[in-house]
């Protein structure tokens, strides 16, 4: 139910989601969640809040869920959707999502009133390793802002400052910029904007802005990013060239989201391939494919050296 569904009803669901903490024991569940609210968030984006029942493990930034409409759904498969916020309200877990109603599934989702129920499977995948030491630099490209809003929340809760770099084609497409500003208002974190057309903030892309900012920041830098794969490849290359760590939330068409269908491969780097081969039989249950990492269970967050950026589509 993410935003790159190109043909209505023939949705190419892409997970906007996220090498991170080691694969934990499986804790995901499929539950019925209740719509708390939906509101417009500009440029046809919507902010959806769901209330999850007890027993659903709270997601961390960079993780995703599989969202499925109740019968009769216009689409068959659940849609991977990155979590944009998670908080407790009167003891109940509330999870927020930022999405665009562009396909049949997301349009139907956008019509759900408060109180309606949807099926949620999660939390899935590995999130950002936010505790990694260094100056956190969060980099969002367009609608890729969702998991970074949550990362900003988590950093604020642990009283850590961050630099939040947010880029889009135009100022109008800086969706969620007010949410970002709210989250950064405490504790001296800073928001840096970039637009391709210069209509807001720095004129150019996020890597251009990062290059400008980096000399002023305390090293080492730890980048957490999400956005179009082209942007993530550029960020990954910048990080590798500049001695920074970068954790990049990737997306993929998915079916199961849980590692069984093997449907969401991303090309491993030569270094990662060698490591998987060396691990051999000792590798975790779902690993061991030296060629392809699975976006859903190996990711969706990958460190820049894990993937072959020349072959990422």
């Amino acid at each position, binding site marked *: 139910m993410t935003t790159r569904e*190109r*043909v209505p*009803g*023939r*949705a*190419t*669901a892409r997970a906007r989601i996220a090498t991170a903490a080691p694969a934990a*024991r*499986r*804790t*995901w*569940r*499929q539950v019925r969640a209740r719509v708390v609210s939906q509101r417009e968030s500009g440029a046809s984006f919507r902010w959806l809040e769901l209330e999850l029942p007890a027993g659903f493990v709270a997601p961390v930034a960079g993780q995703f869920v599989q969202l*499925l409409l109740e019968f009769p759904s216009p*689409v*068959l*498969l*659940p849609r991977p959707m990155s979590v944009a916020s998670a908080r407790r309200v009167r003891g109940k877990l509330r999870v927020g999502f930022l999405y665009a109603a562009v396909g049949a599934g997301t349009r139907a989702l956008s019509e759900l009133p408060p109180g309606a129920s949807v*099926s949620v*499977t999660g939390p899935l995948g590995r999130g950002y390793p936010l505790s990694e030491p260094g100056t956190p630099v969060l980099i969002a490209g367009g609608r890729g802002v969702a998991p970074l809003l949550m990362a900003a929340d988590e950093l604020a809760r642990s009283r850590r400052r961050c630099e939040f770099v947010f880029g889009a084609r135009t100022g109008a497409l800086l969706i969620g910029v007010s949410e970002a500003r709210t989250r950064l208002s405490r504790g001296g974190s800073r928001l840096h904007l970039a637009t391709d057309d210069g209509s807001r903030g720095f004129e150019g892309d996020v890597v251009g802005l990062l290059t400008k900012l980096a000399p002023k920041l305390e090293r080492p830098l730890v980048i957490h990013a999400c956005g179009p794969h082209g942007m993530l490849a550029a960020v990954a290359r910048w990080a590798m060239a500049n001695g920074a760590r970068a954790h990049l939330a990737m997306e*993929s*068409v*998915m*079916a*199961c989201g*849980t*590692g*069984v*269908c*093997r*449907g*969401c*491969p*991303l090309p491993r780097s030569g270094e990662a391939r060698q490591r998987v081969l060396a691990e051999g*039989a000792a590798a975790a*249950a*779902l690993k*061991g*494919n*030296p*060629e*392809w990492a699975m976006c859903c269970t190996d990711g969706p967050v990958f460190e820049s050296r894990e993937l072959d950026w020349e072959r990422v*589509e």
Partner: protein
Amino acid sequence: MSYAAPKRAALAPERIDLSVRVGSLTLRNPILTASGTFGYGDEYAHVIDLATIGGVVTKTVTVKPRAGNAPQRVAETASGMLNSIGLENVGLERFRDEKLPRLKQLEATVIASIGGETPEELETLLRALGREPGVGAFEVNFSCPNVAAGGARYWADADRLERTLARLKPLTDKPLIAKLSPDVTDIRDTARACERGGADALTAVNTFVAMSIDLDGMTSRLGRATGGLSGPAIKPMALARCWEAAGAVKIPVLGSGGIASGRDALEFIAAGATAVQVGTATFVEPEASTRVLAEMRAWLAANGIARVTDLIGAFRAEPAQEATTAAARNGGQP
């Protein structure tokens, strides 16, 4: 078959005998997970008690590990999905040393799916696994639509199927189940060939060869031009193939293709299937197989059918054919 005749008194669901036999293997109930949709079982063990379903058909294992196909590997279509996974799997060694012990620990009835590009590869697999105590039966994947060699087209040759099964049969004391492709001129031919070769059962059917084009790029929505179609979209077609296959052989047939409810499963059983496999539905709902089982049990109980085996093949074609004839007499109006 009298089940459809005067309505019987409902029974308590727990009194229904759901056990079925596939060759020498007794399944506690007829609900299996389809190969490739349930990993190696462990992935779902925290949400499903594997000991409660009839069995787990594992991801097809090949002699050497396979990396699988380049992306994209999945695409949704109307009421279905295309896949082009390409038999990604951990290979024989890790399957035997890591996956099988774990499945045994989970008390699952294991039907190990094996695949090969040649009859010799299948022989190698059965020499290694054929006497494994952790395996209840083997399903031979003669029908993967997504590999360059040794796929559905290669195995669509009835003589090859018969010869290969005859070579495999002596290598194991466990039932051999031949999984058939629907993409053949007449599935009764491949079904009978497998029976002659010594198969103990059949699975009908694997995915249908299918495709989807992205007009923007004029490219396939998969990494390869075609993939295999699964999900509710194929259920009526799979049911027809299952019925045809079951009518052509004496060995049990496992029905597969778009099963997502107890009623779906029962349709396959009525069409002649001894057991069924739940596949794509698991991607939508991880606990689909246990729900299908519960729904099946409830329907049998409500209809007073004490043993699921009483329903196997309960459907007879004659009434439908009569209806068709009547419709023709009425100028095509049903």
